[in-house]
Structure formats: C-alpha cells, structure tokens
C-alpha cells in the first residue's frame, strides 16, 4: 500500500485497497472486540459479587460439600478441546476447505453441547438451589450466566455451520467465521475464570 500524499496540490495516489469484509479490515471484527470487552467486564462484576460475599460473610458462606472436580474437571477439558477443534476448522477455511471448516464447527458444537449437558447434570446433583442461600444464588447465577453464553456461542456456531454448508464462504471471504470464533474462544476463557473462582479458590484457604 503506497503512501497517500496529504497535500492536495499533489496527485492523490493510493495503492490497491482490499474491498469489503476481510479479516481485521472488517468493522465487524472490531465490533466483536468491543463485545468481548464489555462482556469481560460483566463477568468481572459477577465474580466481584462472589468474592464480595466470600469476604463479607466469612467461612459460613461456603456450602458443606465443597464443589468437586469430578464433573467440572472433564467439562473444563472438553471446553478447552473445543477451542482447538474450532481453530482446526478455521484453519481449514483459510485453505479453502469447506469440509474441514464444517467438520471443525460440528465437532466444536458437539463438545459445547456436551459441556452444557455435564453442567446441567451437575446442577441437578446439588443439594441446594438458587433460593437456598447466598452461595447457591451466586453459584447458579454465575454458572448460569456462563452457560447462557455457551448457548449463545453454540447459536453462532450453528449459524456459521449453516452458512458454510450453503457455501457462503471461501478462503478470502470468511470474516463471519473469523468474527464468530472470537466469541467462542472468549466464552472458553471466561470459563477458566469461573472455574478458578468456584472450584479452586475454596481449597486455597
């Protein structure tokens, strides 16, 4: 890309510019980053509520049976794996392979759904409810917020799979894929903060 002379008396010469939505040239990519910023701060405030309770209420805040890893551990591994499979699909799309993109998306969707299933199962095993005490309220609300984000992410991936199946993308025109995958990785990263807060910090005292 050549320099643009700013002096109007000189001829305006600009090199060739990409047209339309390509990678970070797309405004949508920047818009997704804004969403990530504001959603991150949402989770900061959610976790602030948890830590505020923990600090103010003392040891009585935690339930008798501390949260265990037996479901959350595999769930975490599944979610991390789903980021890898999504990256694999995206890499395929970059090379123009619709099959690899679709495969990556579908496996990621399956892993995401599995995570949601595990979470719901863990929910059903809890001896307390959202209305039992402050801890129960925080646990179900915060993990519920995260689960809602996973479900939203699944919706995005489903839409991408649909569009990809319809042949909407090629190796250059795939900004929807680039933008949508950011959200999924973000949801995974947030889970690590939620996981650390609920499943690890109780053992650090």
């Amino acid at each position, binding site marked *: *890309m050549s*320099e*643009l*002379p*700013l*002096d*109007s*008396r000189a*001829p*305006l*010469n*600009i*090199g*060739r*510019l*990409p*047209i*339309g*939505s*390509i990678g970070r*040239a*797309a*405004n949508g990519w*920047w*818009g997704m980053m*804004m*969403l990530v*910023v*504001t*959603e991150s*701060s*949402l989770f900061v*405030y*959610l976790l*602030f*509520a948890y830590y*505020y*309770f923990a600090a*103010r*209420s003392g040891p*009585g*805040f935690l339930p008798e049976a501390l949260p265990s890893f037996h479901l959350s551990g595999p769930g975490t591994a599944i979610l991390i794996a789903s980021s890898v499979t999504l990256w694999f699909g995206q890499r395929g799309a970059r090379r123009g392979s619709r099959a690899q993109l679709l495969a990556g998306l579908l496996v990621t969707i399956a892993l995401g759904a599995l995570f949601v299933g595990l979470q719901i199962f863990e929910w059903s095993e809890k001896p307390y409810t*959202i*209305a039992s*005490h*402050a801890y*129960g*309220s*925080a646990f179900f*609300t915060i993990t519920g917020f995260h689960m809602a984000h996973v479900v939203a992410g699944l*919706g995005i991936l489903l*839409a991408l799979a649909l*569009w990809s199946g319809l042949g*909407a*993308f*090629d190796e*250059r*025109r795939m*900004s*929807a894929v680039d933008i949508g995958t950011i959200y999924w990785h973000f949801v995974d990263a947030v889970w690590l903060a939620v996981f650390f807060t609920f499943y690890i910090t109780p053992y650090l005292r």
Partner: protein
Amino acid sequence: MAVDYQKRPEAGYVTKELEAKLHKMWETKPGLFGVIATVDHKVIGIRYIVTAFAFLVVGGLQALLMRLQLAQPDQTILTPEQYNQLFSMHGITMIFLYALPILSGFSNYLFPLLLGTRDMAFPRLNAFSYWVYLASGLFMYASFLIGQAPNNGWFNYAPYALKPFNPGLNMDFYALGMVFFGISTTVGAANFVVTVMRNRAPGMSINRLPIMIWGTTTVSVGILLANPAVSLAFFLLWLDRQFGTHFYDTAGGGQPLLWQHLFWIFAHPWVYIIVLPAMGMVSDALPVFCRRPLVAYTLVILATITTMLLGFGVWVHHMFATGIPFLSMSYFSGASFIITIPSAIATFAWIATIWTGRVVVTTAFLYFAGFISMFVIGGVSGVVTASVAADLQLHDTYFVVAHIHYVLIGINLFGVLGGLYFWFPKMSGKMLSERLGRWNFWLTFLGFNLAFLPMHWTGLLGMPRRIYTYPEGAGWSWVNMLTTVGSFILAFGILLLFVNVWMSLRRGVAAGANPWDAPSLEWATASPPPAYNFTVMPVVASRHPLWEDRLGESEGHSSIERGLILDDGKEMLATSVIDAAPRAILKMPEDDPWPFLVTLAMTLGFTALLLHWWWIGLAAGVATLLGCVFWLWPRGDLAQTKGTAHE
C-alpha cells in the same frame, strides 16, 4: 476465474453528476419502510435528539409538579406515593432517558461529519440502538399506566427495592427497563469507538481529532466497562424479587451493600459519561466564537481521559454514610479530591481561550459561558461533598440535590443548548433567532440559578431530600418558594427554545454551509448535509481544515473538493487507528428493517418477563435470535460472501 478482491480507488473532483449518482445510492426511500428501515446517521441522530428532548419535557413537568407540592409547607397536592413515583421517574428520566441519549444524538449526527466519512461503522446497529432506547423508555413509562411507576429513587437501594417491602410491579419495570436500556447504551458505545478507530478521513491522525470526538469516545469506552455493573445489579434485583435468590437480602446471607457497590461502580463513571461529551462540544464550539483555536488541546484531551479513569475509582464517596471502614473512606475521599485537577485544567483552558480570543457574543457563546460558571459552582459543591466530614453532615440533604443539578443542568443541559444553537443551522439549514435566543438564555440561566442556588442553603438548614412535604415551622418555607418560582422561570425559558426552533423551521434565515466560519469538516458540506455527507472523501492535513490558510499550522493542505470518489455502491474508507491511512474500502448496508423487528421481539420478551408469561418470553427470545441471524446473514452486496468483489 480470478476474483478481484482489491482495487485502486479513483480520485476526482466534486461534480454534479457524481452528486446525483451518490444521492440515488444513499438516500432513504420515502414511505413507511424508509421510516422503519433507515440507517442514515443524521436521521437517527435527530431522532435521538427529539426523543431525548421529549423525555426532558416530561421529566421537567414531573419536577414542576413536585415544586408545586413543595412551594409551601403541609401541602396535599400529591400523595406520598405519587410523590415517590414522581421523584423516582424524574431522576430516571433525566439521568438515563435524557442526559446520555441527547449526547448520543449529537454524537450520532456529528461523528461521520466531523470525521469526514459517510456513516457510522455499524449503520444498522445505530438504528437498533435508537429503537431499543425508545422501546426501553416507553417500557419504563408504561408503569404509569397501571399506577406502579418505580418509587424508590433513581438509585433504588436494597432492601427497600425487594419484594417484601415493595410488592408491586414498580421495581420490576425499573429493573427490566434498565437491562433493556443498557443494551441500547452498550451497542451505541461500541459503534462510536469502532467508528473513531476505523472510519476517518485520510490524514485525520488522532492528534487532529475534534475534542468532542475524544469526549464521546472516552465515555464510550467507559460505558463498555461500567454499564455491565448496572445491568447486572438490576438483573440480580429482579432475580431476588422473582425467584427468591439472596443477593441483597440479609435473610439468606445476602448483602444489601452489594447493590450500592454495583450501582455506584456504574453510576459514578456515568456522571462523567453524561458530562464529558458535553465538555467536548463546548471545547469545539466555544473557540469558534473566540475566533481562535482552543488553548491547550492536548492537555484538555488528557484531562478528559484522566477524568474518566479517575471516575472509576471514586464510587464509594456515595457510600460514606454506610459504615464502611475508615481506610476505605480516606482512599475514596482522596481520589474524589484529585479529580478536581483535570476538571480545573479544562476550565482554565476555556477561560484562557476566551481571554486571549476576540469574543463574538452569540446565544451559543452565552450558553457556553454559563456552562463554565455553573461547572465551577457544581464542581466546588462536589469538592465539599468529597470530604468525609462534610459529607456525613450533608448526606441525603438538599445540598446534594443542588450539587447534582448544578452538575447535570450546568454541564449537560447548558452545553447541549449551546451546542443546539451552534449546530441547529447545520441540521436544519436554518438559523435560530438570536433575539429570542437571548430571552431563552437569560430566563433559563436566571431561573436555574434562582431555583438551585438557594437549594444549597435548604440543605444546610437540614431539609432531607425526597420528603413529600414539611411542617410549617421548619424554617424551610421561603427557600422552597424561591426554588419553585425559579423552576417555573427555568421551564418558561426552555419553552422559548421550542418556540424558537418552531419559528426557525417555519421561516428562519437560510444558514449556508458555514454560518459561523467554523474550522471543522462538518461545515465543509451543505446545510443540511446530503445523505452521503461528502461527495468525495476529504483529506485532512491539520486540526482545523477550514482555518488552515489563516493559521498556517499545517505542512500540507487539507483537500475538500478533490478526494477519493468511492461511488461503486455505498462505500466508505476503513483507515488505520493512529494515522488514519486508508486500509480498505468498506461496503455499507442499505436500509434494513431487521433492527426494528428485533427490537419489537425484544420488547415483547421484556414485557413477557415482567408479567411472567414465560413461554411467550421464550418464544420472543428465540425470535430475537433468529432476527439477529437474518440481520447478520452474509451478503454479497456487503462483500461478505464467496467470490464477491467490486464488480
């Protein structure tokens, strides 16, 4: 087949043929579809401004009713419950439904014009943020229809906001309405930030941005970081009320103070969010009437950013009376004092600009001068309440009410009214009457000060805020009468503004492109501007493109008449973040009904949540998501799909 993903954009001069061609591409189609589907930032900006003024009028009428009630002791015009609902809705209306949206309106209208581009980064999202603003405002106002408006003040403390104490729908309207409104605020903020980062005239590097752009961008980042706190606070309140969670009620181990923390973590930054763009407007417009550039451009920008940053570290100064630890109070008190430094920098920059300039006294100038003087008064009363010792005495008295009105009317409304006198000719093509403008200004200014200056005294005399009446011998009668008289004069002054606008639209003097001989890009295009804003993309070589010949501050020359043509469909430039060098040619969306339709689905959804129609709520949620999928469906005309290029 090789598809061409790049092209070399052509440069050229402004011609009649080009203007006609662009007009056909960019104009909003007439008729109902155009009304619903338009994505023109200028139309959306004016809608924001008109709607915000409508809420200002409604909130003002609520205030007048309250002032009638308080004019004398022991009055019974309003019942206590009516009074509670009025002062709550007055605060909600002015702070949320007027103060930010009016600034969003100006910013929406002006951003692409000031930046030398053709629209916002996300035109459809822009339409969406307006529709959601309107819908959420109407949603909260629907509470009056069943006589159950929010009644716990705009900051709505727990536990009184909880179900046992407040069983009606009042709080549910407020809680859901604020979550709904937050969506509008958030997407609007994201749009401003991305527009500034990505869509500017070539050469408009960040040290050449108008201050108003800096103001709105700074607060937009603030909104992205702060707004989730209040949306969450209200959502948790709603959960406590519907599902028996224990976030705020002590019975199950909840913490009422959690509400105050979450609310003020948001609401103190919010105070700066609703004044910094107005300060930016003054910083851009005041120098035009001083016939010189603003003094200390860089310092004013740094002060703006510093104020926003510090604004995140002062929220506990609203909570000095809640029994928090002494160390915490000391820290937050100190932070609140420090914030006077950037405020003072801006104030001295304005004064120095007036001092060293050749002042042209217009109504707009008078408003800006009034703005500065009231900013000082409101700032000083703010410093008083930043002191823990003084605050414990003044907390919940009328002193605080006087302070917040000096800040919000002084720094928001007066800046906005000055800005309106300044930019109305650009928006309408007609000048406002200066003669009527003087009456408008002086009545507003005198009425405001008559109403609120004595109110400091009312507070020092010990009158608590939010009481619906007071007894005869309390010694508060005469000051309250003064305030009531002043508030009616203020209201009459505002009425004259509307008369002025109405008469100007009917038979105002034609404005021409640049009636004030101002330096920035919006004055380089016609008044009102064409749908495509600029026929060719301007190139910017200095901070004051239209004053370059006089100032001699630039190395090259800005170019208005010659630039990139970009006429291959709706196109604009993507530019680099720091230097605004061209990076790509963006395809911009046509008018689109989806933002409106998605808003309708969301309105149904929030109504269903309010009334516990769970299945309808679920259906509306699904409809909202499907609407978004259709909205975002990759499209060839936006060059988002396989094989699409400029041909």
